[in-house]
């Protein structure tokens, strides 16, 4: 007998918006700072109404000063707030690196005190925004002790991971995906939807091949798996938190299937996909029946016109083809 949990069709951006509203409502220490988050309601409208509801102190429009913007998170987190820093495009995090990596991520190491900082960054090539507004640089942040990194692939996780991050006592980078913003997902109707950090989600069980996918590649991996269902049994694992990785869940799946495909929107070298393949080689060498395969864009910059964007990023059939190669 199964217990049905009611779900509601929800756009990805709405999940984020609901998480912000609920957490700011729950805890007055939670503040949101960023460019155009207040009066303008955000570049995607997902912070619309928050400033009216929570005031201009707690929903604070900042000048275009990314280094100080991240400093607002670090400094206010150190004096008692639970700040959320919005990074309008993940690419802009490059202007914030000192404050996030050298300062925020090391705060606990130096002081022993928590730094409840949440950073939200919009990644990926979903709009026609070009090479400086579309990058997936998540791997750069995964080698930083003291920093957690999570990445959502659907509205439920976008909401639940963000709510968990806000309540977490560690600096946490939540990567949201431009390419999913308007997509609809079934989100459980519960009072307080929390998705734990550090726990992967087995999206689909299977026995022949494991596909580990992140962000926008998760729905495509599921689509590929469903398309192949008659001939190949594909397990799809979404790590959700990419640092620290839930290696147990990933490796258990790889050990079971003996075949691994990793799909991501980020470039391949030194990436999360590279890390997952390394882990499989280190820990599942005996079980592997075929070489692991990475499915990523070619080593090129992100173009602006949408047809070129889509030509560059892996599609469901690209992932399906990679799955087949592991059985060839």
């Amino acid at each position, binding site marked *: 007998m199964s217990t049905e949990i009611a779900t509601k069709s929800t756009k990805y951006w709405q999940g984020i918006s609901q998480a912000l509203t609920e957490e700011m409502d729950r805890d007055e220490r939670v*503040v949101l*700072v960023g460019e155009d988050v207040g009066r303008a309601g955000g570049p995607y409208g997902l912070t619309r109404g928050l400033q009216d509801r929570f005031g201009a*102190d*707690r929903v*604070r429009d*900042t*000048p275009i*000063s990314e*280094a*100080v913007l*991240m*400093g*607002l*998170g*670090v*400094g*206010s*987190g*150190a*004096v*008692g*707030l639970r*700040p959320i820093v919005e990074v309008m495009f993940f690419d802009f995090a490059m202007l914030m690196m*000192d*404050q996030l990596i*050298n*300062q925020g991520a*090391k*705060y*606990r*190491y*130096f*002081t*022993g*005190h*928590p730094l409840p900082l949440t950073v939200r960054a919009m990644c990926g090539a979903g709009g026609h925004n070009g090479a400086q507004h579309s990058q997936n640089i998540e791997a750069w942040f995964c080698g930083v*002790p*003291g920093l*957690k990194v999570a990445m959502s692939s659907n509205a439920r996780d976008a909401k639940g991971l963000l709510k968990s991050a806000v309540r*977490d*006592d*560690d600096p946490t980078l939540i990567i949201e995906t431009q390419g999913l913003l308007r997509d609809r997902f079934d989100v459980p109707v519960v009072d307080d939807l929390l998705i734990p*950090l*550090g726990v992967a989600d087995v999206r689909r069980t299977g026995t022949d091949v494991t596909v580990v996918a992140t962000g926008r590649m998760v729905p495509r991996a599921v689509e590929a798996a469903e398309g192949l269902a008659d001939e190949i049994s594909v397990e799809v694992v979404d790590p959700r*938190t990419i640092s*620290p990785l839930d290696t147990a869940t990933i490796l258990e799946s790889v050990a079971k299937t003996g075949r691994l495909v990793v799909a991501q929107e980020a470039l391949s070298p030194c990436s999360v996909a590279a890390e997952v393949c390394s882990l499989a080689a280190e820990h599942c060498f005996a079980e592997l029946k075929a070489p692991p395969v990475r499915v990523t864009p070619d080593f090129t910059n992100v173009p602006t016109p949408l047809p070129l964007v889509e030509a560059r990023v892996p599609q469901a059939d690209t992932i399906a083809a990679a799955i087949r190669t592991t059985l060839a």
Partner: protein
Amino acid sequence: MVTSIDDQLDALGASTDPALGRYATMQLCRRFEETVHDQFHSEQGVPGPLHLAIGQEAVAVGACHDLRTTDVITSTHRGHHHCIAKGARTDRMMAELLGRRPGYSHGRGGSMHIAIPEIGLLGTNGIVGGGIPIATGAAYGLQVQKRDDVVICFFGEGAAAEGVLAEALNVASLWKLPIVFLCENNQYVELAAQDLHVAGEIWRRGTGYAVPGVHVDGNDVDAVTAAVGEAVERARTGGGPTIIEALTFRWFGHYAGDKAAFRTDEEVELGRAGDPIVRARKALDPVVVAEVDRVVEDEIASALRFALSSPVSGPDVLSLNHLASV
């Protein structure tokens, strides 16, 4: 029974006579740094770099003298005096610098990574200018919480060349943040005189952002207290930020062991003649000063004994305090 240094100095009048109190804290900073400098040149050495602020004590002490514990400061790579002026314990500081287990960061951070949130010290810093955005964020945090505490952001004239200062002045002015940007100009930037680094006058850099600018003799501790006190009062009462430039002199090279070949002996002699401690001492009763010096000497000797008798930090400290969970 052992009484604390604060009690002993209070008994000498340090809490009722602000000038004496400031002198005592300056002397504590000076003797702390001279002692750790000696350790640096001792056989066992110091397990990390030291950037000495000897000669610059009046800026830190003058600025912090009237602060509350709940007020916040950010310091720099050259920040021992800021830490002590804000209330850090010299024994745990010494332990940290000497790589000992009871140091503020378990003896693994050293001079540039001392941060003690419980006394409002959000850190010395290994990144020049790294404290400026943090200070701005702390000021925002205090403002949102409607606390009447303030932030003093210490930085050097070298850090004034970092872009974050411009960002911070703009934000602080826009939002009327309770912050004082305090440039401690010691006349040298790393391994050079400031002619390679500084254009114009730093205290004037607030003008375009509508941030009032003040310059003060950074070797005159009373003048620093007065200038910073006025800015702190404005910040506390909603009047917004101030930028202050305090001119002082760096007695030693960039780091302990640096021969400072970029300057002449005459230049150093002239600079050291402005010794803020000698200056402050002149106005005080020599008998009381001698007593204060003795108390300070005992305190520093005790701090050194504490550090040297504490266990050297071993590999067990490496993994401490990275994440709270997962």
